[in-house]
């Protein structure tokens, strides 16, 4: 259906709108398999809103936005997840009352893409149990509410990579993450790209970020906000 050079995300003259309020100047970009695309720009210019539009979270916009061969306006959140779209959100969104391991189990259930090879998945699951502790010092027997903000983000990053996404939306993936984990995040992103997935990242220069994207698009606030 789609050739190897078909873009996974395509934005054309995209303007995010909240009601009558225009958020950004039009932006255009296309994200191809294997690429890392960076969205930069000042606070409040609509970077996170673009990611939310791609996730089908009901963000209004003008222009054209396609993700995984469908119009973002018609995107159903559960369907894009099934088709391999994953997100590392800006602020952790985990259910705080669940035990970490409970959450990992629920997550596994709703990540059918990861159950294709059952045996291997079991292996990976066993690894996952140990890895959260070994990599990040996360105890999987405590409620998520006990984890620090940084640990919650690490858990979300870990699961996003574990899902082997076709498209990963990473919203400031290094915010609040200790420097020692930067190689881990960089490695995960390389993994996504090498398995012909792609990463769309929101980032600020101020983090002294190590990313060298295939392209960077600066999202600017609309000059006239009418």
């Amino acid at each position, binding site marked *: 259906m789609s050739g190897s050079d078909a873009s996974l995300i395509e934005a054309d003259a995209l303007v995010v709108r909240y009601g009558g309020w225009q958020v950004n100047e039009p932006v255009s970009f296309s994200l191809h398999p294997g690429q890392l695309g960076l969205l930069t720009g000042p606070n409040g210019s609509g970077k996170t809103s673009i990611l939310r539009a791609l996730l089908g979270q009901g963000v209004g916009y003008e222009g054209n936005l396609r993700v995984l061969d469908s119009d973002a306006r018609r995107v159903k959140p559960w369907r894009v997840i099934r088709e391999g779209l994953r997100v590392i959100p*800006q602020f952790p969104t985990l259910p705080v009352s669940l035990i970490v391991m409970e959450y990992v189990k629920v997550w596994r259930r709703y990540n059918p893409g990861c159950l294709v090879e059952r045996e291997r998945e079991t292996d990976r699951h066993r690894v996952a149990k140990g890895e959260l502790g070994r990599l990040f010092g996360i105890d999987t027997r405590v409620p998520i509410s006990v984890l620090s903000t940084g640990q919650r983000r690490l858990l979300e990053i870990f699961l996003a990579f574990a899902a082997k996404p076709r498209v990963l939306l990473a919203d400031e993936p*290094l915010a609040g993450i200790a420097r020692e984990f930067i190689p881990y995040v960089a490695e995960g992103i390389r993994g996504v790209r090498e398995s012909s997935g792609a990463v769309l990242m929101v980032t600020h220069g101020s983090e002294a970020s190590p990313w060298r994207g295939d392209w960077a698009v600066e999202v600017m606030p609309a000059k006239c906000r009418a």
Partner: protein
Amino acid sequence: MQGIGDENSCIVVMRQGAIAYGAREILWIDEFCVHRGEIVLVVGGNGTGKTSLFRTLAGIGPRFTGDMRYLGQPLAPVAAHTRARNGIRLVPQERQVFDRLSARQCFELAVDNLVVRGRGAMPETPGYIQTALSGRNKFVSQFSGGEAKRLLLESLVVGQVQVLMLDEVFAGMDAAAVDRVMVIVRNCISRRAGCVLADHTGTAREAFGAVTEYRLLPHEEGPAAFKLVRARQ
């Protein structure tokens, strides 16, 4: 060079105790002290207890089992809102603002609560809030993550600040906001307040150079998993 624990120059001091959630001790502190005009960097991995330390000082988090003093007086019995009014300010890591208030309401609320009427001078409205919100009753829920953090920061530095705690303040901030943080920190220091930062980005260390540094290290003896240690200068 000020001696550590010198009562006269310490704004806040914590001694010989652990930060504990109920019976669960997480961070042992021999001595932690913020002097006047000092920038203190708290360095440690994710989940070692930096935010818990800040929340304990602000009075909204776990308790401290040892001796905790603010300007020589015991701090433990002081309520969180009184601490904030007396100048112990915590700018939290995540956006924690009233989503259903407008930005201006948030700021006015902060001014009402943090500035003791008749004493601290009424601050001028920061340019950020003035220009970004003029003529617009924009609700906090409509702000982006970075904007909401900036708003919170601006609202919390009004009035008399004695200790300003900035928890991962550079995460998600654009260049203009980072510059503004630098100005706020330098203002604090020049007014002899103390400033405590947790920062993984390295921005603070780069910008402020020689600062006092405390590290959160694994703690072998005792129930707490980590201990707070003053790094050599």
